[in-house]
């Protein structure tokens, strides 16, 4: 299909401000009378706040007050409290905030506050709380009963209850040593197909343990916020990935009418899943400001961003995989313990889901348990569950394929989802899948046949590793609103409540409106980032779902405005709406182009006609946020507004496949990436540069997850070793390939009006999987069964000294 805008590069409206420094992030805003707030955080991993003595701090001139959990509604464990009330569950947990006339004073005040704590036993390894007699991270237990509604939203939001699950020492020992924990209790289980029969039919069976280690998000912009109250309204400068979907939630946190909350967030310095919805500390910023009646900037330092900025859950697991003679995956049995940290959630079921779609097993069982530890709260991080499974699964699937005598790529293609592919425990359908074609395309880009035929040994100390990996994430939702206003001067205002998380999707999605309107992009203005600008109810932004979801709502809004323009034209020139067309930013009689009017004239007419045309009336089914926005703009132009009711069925899979060639130095454990080629199965490509950005950025995340990023906690005192950036080791320019080759399949998904699906998360999954696969290939099929694989592990493996090859541990070496 030939598009006017879709599939074409464009310059998103905010790029220039980013290169000139004019783009403002929450911390860049100042307000007269602004005061500076800082957090006091817990020095102990588990215990109770016995008392707080802030008298010396409050006596300091310039110190305005402190804010504690008593000033907030109570958060029921395990919901993460903004400030600890009684129970402290990790080092770095905020206890209180102090505000002063200067940042310097606020920090001085911190050191004058005396908090008395009572310690409790703590745990940094989930298996240490799982074993009978092991300490519980919370006084009331070690696991949660998940709230399925929130879980369905694609996040790992907290559940409602803390419970307790324990295994016997024998069961934990067996699990630690890589064996199935027979008879052990799990928190969730599902199964499809006849597992026993399918395993019996398999001719190749492998059984492996695995462990992945959590890692902090470390978004480069820490989650500093600034709020002030003026004339009954709260103005909040914050940092979220989503925009309008967070608005009502933030109003709820501040216990105020959403109509009086102005949320301003034009730019967001990274989120990666940690800023999908408002996070607890935002409540402190807004409420402290209200209490002090002063603008408050609550600055979050880099250390604090580590503590409260969320992190990926680690997992410890066991898997059994069976292949049949024909190369099909017959059965998979997987058990996963997730490290939920404090008040977070694991994503074991999502990990299992990755297997179901990528390898389409006939039968599968998943057993999972998410356990708290006294470490930082865990939440969604770029493909939570799926990507860490992609990482450990790739070399294991290589092993199975090699054992069965199958080419690793042919094996993946055989099992890849086709249009009739199935997903998850319910084995539901897919909106589309061109994964076999994507595998072919990537293999060709990479030159797989030729690459795999090369000699392994490059030199005396260098070996070649060739890897292949796949990534997946559900990439679509529906039911959100689209909103467009055309002004009498002909300017087309494309309103979106999508956040600006750095992917430019906020601009990409509304190009579906421009496409339907067949209008010049230069005459369009993207309206976003400030709730005072009258934004529609748009999707939450996580799980790669923006492009699919919001091209739909953009499209339906355009359809609505086009229908209205035709009705206006009918009112002016007669005939029926079917007789009219649009083009050249005019609506006209198809048979007589002269009979028509410009979009601007139609807008002027709409204002005269009123009613639904100018937003005086609007559909009942749109969200309250959208209604408010329409009401605020009523009478100022022609309004197109609609809820996305387009047909939807099945899961929307965003998928990617990557190939990688590395040169591994067997004396140092270091490696260079010689070639990285990846293909996105993301439906129609909306914005080629944006896709390249997503695929490359995801690749970098994958390399980091595979080689260097990890939590390290001291089990003796619960201290995290790597709060800072250099210790957390996100990849630098020199840790990624000099060039990366990426492409999109560009095959339309039938359920998006422009055929688009998201790709943010699979972009990481395929990269980490490919690199893990390459490590294994370089080392004669050795499985580390874990991520990351750091240089020391490779050196130890080659030296055969038996270190770093022990049992399953997350959060420690």
């Amino acid at each position, binding site marked *: 299909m030939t598009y006017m805008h879709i599939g074409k590069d464009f310059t998103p409206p905010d790029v220039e401000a980013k290169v000139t420094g004019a783009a403002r992030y929450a911390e860049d805003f100042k307000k007269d009378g602004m005061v500076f707030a800082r957090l006091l955080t817990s020095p102990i991993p588990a215990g109770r706040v016995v*008392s707080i003595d802030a008298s010396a701090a409050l006596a300091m001139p310039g110190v305005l007050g402190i804010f504690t959990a008593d000033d907030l509604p109570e958060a029921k464990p395990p919901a993460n409290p903004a400030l600890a009330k009684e129970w402290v569950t990790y080092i770095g947990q905020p206890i209180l905030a102090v505000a002063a*006339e200067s940042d310097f004073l606020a920090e001085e005040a911190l050191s004058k506050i005396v908090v008395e704590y009572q310690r409790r036993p703590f745990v940094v390894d989930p298996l240490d709380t799982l074993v009978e007699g092991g300490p519980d991270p919370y006084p009331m237990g070690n696991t949660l009963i998940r709230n399925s509604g929130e879980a369905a939203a694609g996040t790992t939001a907290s559940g409602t209850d803390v419970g307790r699950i324990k295994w016997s020492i024998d069961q934990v020992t067996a699990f630690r040593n890589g064996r199935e924990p027979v008879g052990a209790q799990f928190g969730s289980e599902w199964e499809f197909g006849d597992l026993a029969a399918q395993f019996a039919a398999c001719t190749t069976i492998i059984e492996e343990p695995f462990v992945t280690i959590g890692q902090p998000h470390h978004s480069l912009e820490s989650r500093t916020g600034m709020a002030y109250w003026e004339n009954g309204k709260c103005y909040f400068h914050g940092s979220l990935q989503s925009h309008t979907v967070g608005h009502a939630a933030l109003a709820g946190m501040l216990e105020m009418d959403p109509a009086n909350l102005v949320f301003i967030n034009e730019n967001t310095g990274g989120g990666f899943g940690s800023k999908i919805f408002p996070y607890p500390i935002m409540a402190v910023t807004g409420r402290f400001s209200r209490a002090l*009646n002063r603008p408050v900037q609550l600055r979050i330092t*880099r250390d604090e961003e580590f503590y409260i900025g969320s992190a990926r859950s680690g997992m410890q697991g066991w898997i059994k995989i069976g292949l049949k003679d024909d190369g099909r995956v017959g059965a998979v049995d997987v058990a996963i313990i997730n490290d939920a940290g404090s008040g977070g959630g694991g994503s074991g079921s999502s990990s299992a889901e990755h297997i179901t779609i990528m390898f389409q097993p006939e039968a599968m069982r998943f057993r999972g348990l998410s356990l708290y530890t006294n470490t930082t709260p865990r939440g969604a991080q770029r493909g939570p569950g799926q990507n860490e499974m992609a990482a450990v699964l790739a070399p294991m699937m290589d092993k199975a394929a090699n054992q069965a005598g199958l080419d690793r790529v042919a094996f993946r293609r055989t099992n890849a989802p086709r249009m009739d592919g199935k997903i998850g425990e319910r084995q539901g359908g897919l909106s589309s899948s061109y994964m076999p074609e994507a595998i072919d395309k990537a293999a060709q880009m990479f030159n797989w046949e030729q690459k795999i035929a090369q000699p392994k040994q490059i030199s005396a100390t260098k070996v070649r590793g060739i890897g292949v990996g796949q990534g997946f994430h559900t990439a679509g939702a529906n039911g959100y609103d689209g909103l467009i206003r055309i002004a009498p001067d002909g300017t087309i205002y494309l309103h979106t409540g999508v956040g600006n998380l750095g992917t430019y999707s906020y601009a990409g999605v509304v190009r579906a409106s421009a496409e339907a309107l067949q209008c010049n992009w230069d005459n369009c203005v993207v309206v976003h980032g400030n709730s005072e600008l009258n934004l529609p109810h748009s999707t939450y932004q996580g799980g790669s779902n923006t492009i699919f979801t919001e091209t739909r709502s953009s499209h339906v809004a355009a359809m609505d405005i086009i229908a209205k323009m035709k009705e206006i034209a009918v009112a002016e020139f007669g005939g029926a709406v079917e007789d009219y067309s649009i083009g050249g930013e005019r609506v006209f009689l198809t048979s007589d182009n002269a009979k028509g009017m410009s979009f601007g004239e139609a807008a002027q007419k709409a204002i005269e006609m009123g009613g639904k045309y100018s937003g005086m009336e609007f559909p009942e089914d749109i969200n309250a946020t959208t209604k408010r926005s329409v009401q605020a703009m009523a009478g100022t132009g022609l309004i197109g507004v609609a809820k996305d009711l387009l047909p939807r069925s099945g899961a929307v899979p965003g998928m990617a496949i990557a190939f990688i060639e590395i040169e591994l130095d067997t004396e140092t454990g270091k490696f260079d990436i010689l070639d990285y080629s990846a293909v996105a199965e993301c439906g129609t490509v909306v914005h080629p540069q944006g896709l390249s950005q997503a695929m490359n950025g995801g690749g970098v995340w994958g390399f980091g997850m595979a080689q260097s990023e990890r939590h390290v906690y001291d089990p003796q005192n619960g201290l995290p070793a790597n709060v800072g950036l250099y210790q957390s080791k996100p990849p630098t*320019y020199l840790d990624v390939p000099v060039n990366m080759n990426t492409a999109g399949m560009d095959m339309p998904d039938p359920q998006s009006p422009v055929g688009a699906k998201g790709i943010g998360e699979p972009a990481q999954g395929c990269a980490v999987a490919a690199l893990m696969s390459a490590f294994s290939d370089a080392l004669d099929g050795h499985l580390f069964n874990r991520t990351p694989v750091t240089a020391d592990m490779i050196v130890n493996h080659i030296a055969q000294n038996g270190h770093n090859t022990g049992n399953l541990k997350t959060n420690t070496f």
Partner: protein
Amino acid sequence: MNPKLTRRRFIKGVIASSAAAASTSLWYSAIGADRPAGAVERLLSLNVNGQTRRVDVAPQETLAHTLRYKLGLTGTKLGCNRGECGACTVLADDVNIYACSTLTHEVSNKAVMTVEGLRAADGTLHPVQAAFVQELSPACGFCTSGQVMSAVALLKSNPRPTREEARQAMSGNLCRCGAYDHYLNGVMRASGQLS
């Protein structure tokens, strides 16, 4: 002690008029103006973006803070405030440095250039800025100012770097979004090696 007893009334009396207390230059206001003999004077003339700015700077104040909070130049970002990420990168006499890990007094006799100072007088973007727009180099944009400044520093000393040289020169600037490839494309374009 019972926390319920000690936590109350932690907010001091609400200030009658917030306007009266309003000030944007309270950053270090609590620090005494007295200084030991021989120590630096607080008032200094700072050459920033070609202009001389008189500014009151505490001895231990970092350049990033002076720029952001006293001179209103918020294009310089604080990502880590520990010299580990590069978001605060500025030029001092054409050399790229971490403004978060430089005392303002250390650059009192240097020409400081921030991202806000790159545009030509007629508003034209600096070639690095223009190339970064064209290559869609920024993702979330938070590290971008620093990436721009490191690229500008590189091209001042090496106008036609190889991609490898560019990568080395940019390696003190983290991009958590992983937009390295696009930034390198931008550097190559800015140096006229990509069309």
